[in-house]
C-alpha cells in the first residue's frame, strides 16, 4: 500500500475503504467501494433498498469480510479484525433493528456498555453502583428516555429502543459512530427533534458520524455531507444541497421514497 501513498504529510482520513468487493450469491452488494470519511462531519448515506448501504456498514465494522479490498482506520488496516477489536479502536455502531439486551432495563444496557468500555472486572461490585452511573443517566436524559430507565427493553416502544440503541453506542465514547436509519422507529413528528438532539450530542462529544437515512428532510437538515449509494457503490457525493437537487438522485432515490 505504501506505493500508492501520496507524498503529502496530511493525516490519513478517519475511515477509508479501498476497492471493497463482496458478493452474495449472484448479487454484488459492494462493488469496488473506495471511500474516505473525514473526521468531524456527519455523513448521510442515501440510496434505494438493496443498494448495499447496510453491507457497507457491516464491512467497515468487521461483521462481514470483503472478498476483495481493505478498510483503514486512521491509515491502519482493520480489514481482518473482528467487530469487537474494531469497536475497541473507537468505532461504535447503532442498528436498523436495535440490538439490545432485551431482558435488561434501559439503564442496565447503558451500564453494561460503560462497564465494557472501562473494562470493569470486580466480581463483587454491583453493576448499579459503578461510578459511570450518573454519566449513563445523563445519556438517557439526552435521548429523552429517563422515564423508562428502569423498564425492561422488551416493554419499550420501537422508537425508544432505537434511541437506547444509539445511546448504548454513544456510551462507548467512540470517535466514529455508524448508524443505520437512526430515526426509522421514531414518530415522524419527533424525527427532527431527535436528530437535533443527536447531532448536538455528537458534536459536543466530538464524534464523527455516518448514518444511513431514507428521509430526505432529515438528510437535508442534519447532514454535512451526503453519499448516494446505488448498485453496491457510491454514485455521487456532495453537500446535501448539491445532492438533493441532482436530477439522477431525484429520479432514482427520491422518486422511490415518494412512491
Amino acid at each position, binding site marked *: 500500500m505504501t506505493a500508492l501513498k501520496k507524498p503529502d504529510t496530511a493525516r490519513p482520513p478517519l475511515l477509508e475503504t479501498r476497492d471493497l468487493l463482496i458478493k452474495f450469491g449472484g448479487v454484488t452488494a459492494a462493488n469496488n467501494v473506495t471511500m474516505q470519511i473525514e473526521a468531524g462531519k456527519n455523513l448521510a448515506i442515501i440510496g434505494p433498498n438493496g443498494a448495499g448501504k447496510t453491507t457497507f456498514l*457491516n464491512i467497515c465494522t468487521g*461483521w*462481514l469480510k470483503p472478498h476483495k479490498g481493505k478498510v483503514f482506520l486512521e491509515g491502519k488496516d482493520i480489514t481482518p479484525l473482528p467487530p469487537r477489536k474494531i469497536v475497541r479502536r473507537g468505532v461504535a455502531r447503532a*442498528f*436498523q*433493528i436495535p*440490538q439490545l439486551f432485551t431482558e435488561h432495563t434501559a439503564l442496565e444496557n447503558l451500564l453494561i456498555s460503560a462497564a465494557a468500555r472501562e473494562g470493569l472486572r470486580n466480581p463483587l461490585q454491583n453493576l448499579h453502583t459503578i461510578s459511570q452511573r450518573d454519566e449513563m443517566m445523563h445519556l438517557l436524559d439526552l435521548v429523552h428516555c429517563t422515564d423508562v430507565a428502569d423498564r425492561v427493553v422488551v416493554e419499550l416502544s420501537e422508537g425508544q429502543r432505537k434511541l437506547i440503541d444509539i445511546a448504548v453506542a454513544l456510551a462507548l465514547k467512540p470517535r466514529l459512530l455508524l448508524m443505520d436509519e437512526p430515526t426509522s422507529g421514531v414518530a415522524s413528528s419527533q424525527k427532527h427533534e431527535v436528530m437535533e438532539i443527536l447531532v448536538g450530542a455528537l458534536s459536543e462529544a466530538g464524534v464523527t458520524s455516518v448514518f444511513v437515512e431514507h428521509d430526505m428532510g432529515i438528510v437535508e437538515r442534519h447532514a454535512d455531507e451526503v453519499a448516494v449509494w446505488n448498485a453496491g457503490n457510491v454514485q455521487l457525493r456532495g453537500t446535501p444541497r448539491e445532492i438533493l437537487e441532482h436530477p439522477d438522485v431525484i429520479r432514482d432515490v427520491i422518486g422511490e421514497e415518494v412512491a
Partner: protein
Amino acid sequence: MDLTIFLLALFDGISYAALVFIVALGLTLIFGVMRILNVAHGSLYAIGAYATVSLTGFLLSLGFAPVLSFPLMLISAVLVGVLLGGPIEWLLLRRIYDKPEVLQLLVTFAVFMILEDVQRLVWGTQPYFQASALQALGNVTVFGVTYTVYQLILLPIVAIGLLLGLRFFLRHTVIGKLILATTEDREAAQSIGIDADRVFLFTFVVGAVLAGLGGALASPTTSILPGMGADMIVLSFAVVATAGLGQIEGAAVTALLIGLGRSFAVYVWPEVAVLVPYLIMVLVLLVRPQGLFGTSVARKI
C-alpha cells in the same frame, strides 16, 4: 498389521458404520426439517432392538423359521416409529416448536429419561442375545477372511439403500417436496396450503422408524442391555455434528470415517477405541465448527 487383521478391521468398520449411519440418518433428518435434536432418539434405537429380540424369540419358540426375523425387524421399527414417535411429536413437541432451543432439548431429554426406565421395566436388566438372523445368512470368505454375510453385505446394502431412497424421496416425490418446502420456510409453506403439522408428524415418525430400524438391525450383532440408548444418542450425535447438522450425505461419509477409525483402533489400541469417535468429532469441530459438510451462515443484522 497383516492383511487379515486389516481386512477384519475394515469389515468391522463398514458394518458398524452402516448401523450408526442408519440411526444418525433419522436424527439428522428430524433436525434438518424440525430444527429439534431428539435426545430420545437413542431410546428409540434401544427399544427397536429389544422389540426385535422379543418378537423373534417368541416366533422362534412357536417353531417358525429364523428367516422370519427379517420382516420382524421392519415390523419392530415401524411399531417404534408409530407407537412411540407419533405420540412424542403429537403430544409434546408440537407444543414447543416456538420455544427456545434449550427448552426443546430439555423436553426430549425428559422423554429420554422416561423411556430409559420404561425399557428396564419391560425388559429388565438382563442382557438379551438373539443372533438367528445373523446365522440365517451364513458366512462369506473374502481374501481368506471369513465374515458374516449379514454384517458385511446386508447392513451396508440397507444403509446405502436408505440413503439413496431418502434422497430420491425428498427430491422426487410430492411428499418429499412438501417436506423440503417446509424445511426452507415454514410460514411460506403454510401460506401456500401445506399442513406443516402433518409434515412434522410424518418426518418425526420416519426419523423414529429409522432409529428403531437401527436397533432392530443391530440386535443380532450385539447383546441388548440397558445403557445402549445413551451410548447411541451420543455416538449418533457425534456423527451428525461432525458431518454438520442436517447433512444427510455428509452423515454417511462421517459414519464411515468414525466407524473405520473405531474399528482400527480396536486392533491397534483397544483401550481408546470407544473414544475414537469423539476424538474425531472434537478434532473436526476444532477446525470446522460447522462440521465437515455444514455451511456457516453469518447472522443478518
